[in-house]
């Protein structure tokens, strides 16, 4: 099994020859669905080169690069990270709607930023290091 890390999740997928996987797995990992037009999410479709589709299998590495996102493999190619495309991050920030995030507190209880709508929120980082 290949481990795939996205900005928010971690998946174990039966991938082969890099990040070739079934369309169902590709959808589970990326949130994009294989259609005749390409990979689609909501109203948007990203056309794929013919070389990135074989039957119902998709080359997720090629797709992710087409989206403009970084694809990084460990030296053993058993763990991969799909990063958010820079354009996507910039567009989200420039929209000025605070990107939502869910993180655990120190006891593991998940907290979601958007639960605080209606309050002014001072969101600050710190670290022990």
């Amino acid at each position: 099994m290949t481990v795939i890390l996205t900005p928010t999740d971690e998946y174990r997928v039966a991938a082969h020859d890099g990040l070739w996987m079934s369309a169902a797995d590709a959808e589970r990992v990326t949130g994009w669905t294989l259609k005749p037009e390409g990979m689609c999410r909501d109203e948007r479709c990203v056309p794929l080169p013919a070389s990135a589709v074989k039957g119902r299998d998709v080359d997720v590495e090629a797709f992710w690069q087409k989206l403009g996102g970084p694809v990084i493999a460990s030296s053993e190619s058993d763990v991969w990270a799909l990063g958010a495309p820079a354009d996507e991050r910039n567009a989200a920030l420039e929209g000025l709607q605070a990107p939502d995030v869910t993180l655990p507190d120190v006891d593991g209880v998940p907290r979601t930023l958007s639960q605080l709508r209606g309050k002014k929120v001072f969101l600050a980082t710190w670290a022990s290091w």
Partner: protein
Amino acid sequence: MWQSLYDELKDKGFMVVAVAEESRGAEHARPWIEQAKSTYWQLIDTEHRLSDLYNLVNVPQAVWIDENGTIVRPPETAGSTDHFRRMNLETRTMSPEDQAARLAARQAYLDAVRAWVSSGTHALPAEAARAALPKVTSEIAEARARFRLGVWLREHGNTTEGDRQMDIASNLHPESWSMWRQAADLQEVGKASGPGFWKRVQALGERPYYPPPRL
């Protein structure tokens, strides 16, 4: 760190969310959190997800978000200053003048938060907030992915490869002190503020370590 500010403002529709950029995890952060006795949210971010989403480069940085979930101030230094760069490294002390200036700057920042909560002062209009956002480049995006991979590999016992990925990440995004210092801390607690850190700080020359907020 923010408890007195929170106590003072919590009845005015104000909330503090403190996020620990802490790849060693919750148990490593717990002593600080328990000592702070905070009643606001204290969250643990082992993968530095917040830094990825908000394009952050250091701690402490803060983002101000209004009642509608709109960013009204971009990521900026949250009350810290560069006076530490002049401290005596043997005694770990600052001159009385620097200590006073440092406290005054922190006070001014806290006063700005108070003014925002009471009257909306310092909230930037959309255009100004947008213009002040640091841009995510393709190098930064790649650095984030490598950092994420590095943290994962280290956590799963592959220290050498994890360190290698984090090292490439820091080279791709040298402005991120959080990436460099977290990677150093994972190698050895204390290394993030060791000789390597001071060498990097000195290499800044005239550039700030904590750029002052433009209030």
